[in-house]
């Protein structure tokens, strides 16, 4: 027997009947989900009645894994969560361990960390721009975005040794000093990208088809953004001030001149604008810091084996997708007793159903593109 529950009385769902709605599985293998996200769509023709995200296809139990790794080791696993902002993930974990151990990070290491964070944010936003445009049907921006992203990857490769999962940050600073070419190449990149970002705007932002596809689509009010726990550009596009770099500054962010970008539209277009403007802000941060890297050590002196005092520690950083939080419970040993990551993608995804109802399938793709979902981040 079928029992009518409260949730089915909600508008838009209705009571299921024999000739029920058309249900479509988008994913886990689908071009628009950029990973193994599985969405169960309930459709009425082309109109979406319900979106049900299913997770678990790329669950690697990173949190559990971290419990058996030492406080130095677990940081490297987090690179594989949000692989597009691995520096920032590492950064959050380092901050948390440093908070517990009360390690003072040298000034040079702080500046290098912030530089790397912002370069990572730029690379992540570039990929979002290209892949998002591809979702909406413009195939060319992808290649333009990757041209610039390649330069950042080369910079990372020189200094960190890897291109995607950097593992560059260690508790107490960064692993090694930056490559001698670092400053020159970053300056080259900044000069190059300043022109190219205008080109991005010419190619996509001003396009009337693109604007029609994103304007007024996926509306999320300020209240809803807060209640779903959205952070990052998703929430800032709805007018919520939530930039951790401004609200809870870490490292040298409080000495820097940059704006928190807030748009009040609440639709995909606002989210798009927030990210486009954030790229310019990140460029300005990189410009401010690149000539002012102080002299000194890149790593504080720490013990070989870190033992966090008994207690609970929480630290947060602003990743490219929103607030990334690290919560460590320590029993005083060499490994965490329990670890919990607050990943921005998970909360942002939870708002998708609310946004998508009443939209078309094409809208759903635009919404997912503008949420900038990274599935391994949602599904740890």
């Amino acid at each position, binding site marked *: 027997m079928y029992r009518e529950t409260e949730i089915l009385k909600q508008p838009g769902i209705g009571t299921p009947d024999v000739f029920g709605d058309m249900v479509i599985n988008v994913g886990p293998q*689908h071009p*628009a989900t950029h990973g193994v996200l599985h969405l169960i769509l309930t459709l009425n023709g*082309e109109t979406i009645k319900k979106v049900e995200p299913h997770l678990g296809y790329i669950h690697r139990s990173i949190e559990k894994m971290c419990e058996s790794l030492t406080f130095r080791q677990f940081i490297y696993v987090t690179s594989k969560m949000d692989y597009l902002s691995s520096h920032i993930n590492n950064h959050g974990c380092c901050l948390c361990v440093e908070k517990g151990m009360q390690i003072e990070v040298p000034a040079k290491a702080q500046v290098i960390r912030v530089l790397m964070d912002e370069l990572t944010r730029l690379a992540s936003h570039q990929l979002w721009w290209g892949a998002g*445009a591809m979702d*909406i049907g413009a*195939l060319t921006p992808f290649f333009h975005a990757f041209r610039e992203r390649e330069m950042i990857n080369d910079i990372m490769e020189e200094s960190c040794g890897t291109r995607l999962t950097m593992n560059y940050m260690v508790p107490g600073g960064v692993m090694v000093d930056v490559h001698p070419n670092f400053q020159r190449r970053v300056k080259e990149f900044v000069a190059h990208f300043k022109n190219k970002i205008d080109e991005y705007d010419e190619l996509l932002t001003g396009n009337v088809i693109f604007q029609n*596809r994103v304007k007024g689509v996926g509306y999320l009010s300020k209240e809803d953004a807060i209640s779903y726990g959205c952070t990052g550009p998703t929430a800032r596009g709805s007018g919520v001030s939530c930039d951790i770099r401004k609200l809870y500054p870490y490292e040298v962010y409080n000495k820097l001149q940059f704006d928190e970008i807030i748009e009040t539209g609440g639709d995909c277009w606002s989210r798009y604008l927030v990210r486009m403007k954030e790229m310019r802000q990140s460029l300005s941060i990189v410009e401010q810091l690149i000539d002012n890297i102080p002299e000194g050590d890149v790593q504080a002196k720490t013990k070989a084996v870190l033992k966090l005092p008994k207690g609970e520690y929480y630290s947060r950083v602003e990743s490219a997708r929103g607030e990334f939080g690290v919560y460590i419970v320590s029993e005083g040993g060499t490994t965490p007793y329990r670890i919990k990551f607050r990943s921005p993608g998970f909360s942002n995804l939870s708002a998708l159903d609310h946004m998508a109802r009443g939209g*078309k399938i094409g809208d759903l793709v635009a919404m997912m593109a503008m949420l900038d979902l990274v599935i391994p981040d949602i599904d740890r």
Partner: protein
Amino acid sequence: MPSLENIANRIHEWLNNSFGAPWPMLIEFLIVGVCIIGLFAMLGLVLIMMERKVSAWMQLRLGPNRVGPVGMFQTVADTLKLMVKEGMTPDGADKLLFNLAPFIVMIIAMVIMAPLMFAKGLQIWDINIGVLFFTAISSVSVIGILMAGWASNNKYSLLGAMRSGAQIVSYELSAGFAILVIVILTGDLKISSIVDSQANGWWIFKGHLPVWIAFVIFMIAVTAETNRAPFDLAEAESELTAGFHTEYSGMKFALFFLAEYVNIFVVCALGATLFLGGWQPLHFGTDTQFNHYMDYIPSSLWFMGKTFFLIFVIMWFRWTFPRLRIDQLLNLEWKYLLPISMFNLLLVTLITIKGWHF
């Protein structure tokens, strides 16, 4: 002067002199059939190669460059791969319709070539309702697409097919009105007389504003009719994986793919015939020397040059624009293009009655 027209005429005479009654006609049918199939294959190779090179050029890539000189045989290699691939029919699919659909789409693409005038005097069938034949036959291909989408027993395919149906049926109206503009100016539906009427200047030059409007509307409408980006909602890779041909593989998929490119060629050839003078060379008023030079270029080259220019424009659209949403697509047609083209038709009728065109 050896021209395609002379060759065609000579073959025709020779056949008529050598054989008795039904044979010359049957042999000509055979020759034409072989030629069209050859053209079909050639167009597939050339246009797919061209698409790849154009997209690579726009996307900072090199494109295919390994198989053969500058990657020329890449499409041949791909075709071979598709031929040896298993053509699967999914369980639960309507077997007959599923296997029939790609052939319908392909046959339509071939039949539609009949009234095209490839060069001076080179035409398969100079039917007196030429452009009407185009509009009539091109609307049949939607049946093939609907069949493919329905018979696949796949929800993505079904959505793609329904989108395609709505789209093609809508945009045919605008394309038809744009074609009517030229028909009114020429006073004839026959392709050869439409081309002849442009001997003293192409319609795009002679026809003032209404023909420009009609040309732009025609290009938009045929882009939509051939399911090309930004109107590729029937396939919409990021939304419906591959739309109506999601379940097709091997040669059956290749037929859809080929038919798309041949359709592009056909509509661009029609555009070149109606607006850009078909095989007529470019003439500048009384500049006889210039006109003389232009006449030396063979008429087939003029026709192909114009057609490929339009094909390039359509490819340019694809690699630049994002995709429209289904409701926006239909709004564009019913709220903008259709009223504009209806008004345009009135305007051109007035111009023709008053004799204001050149």
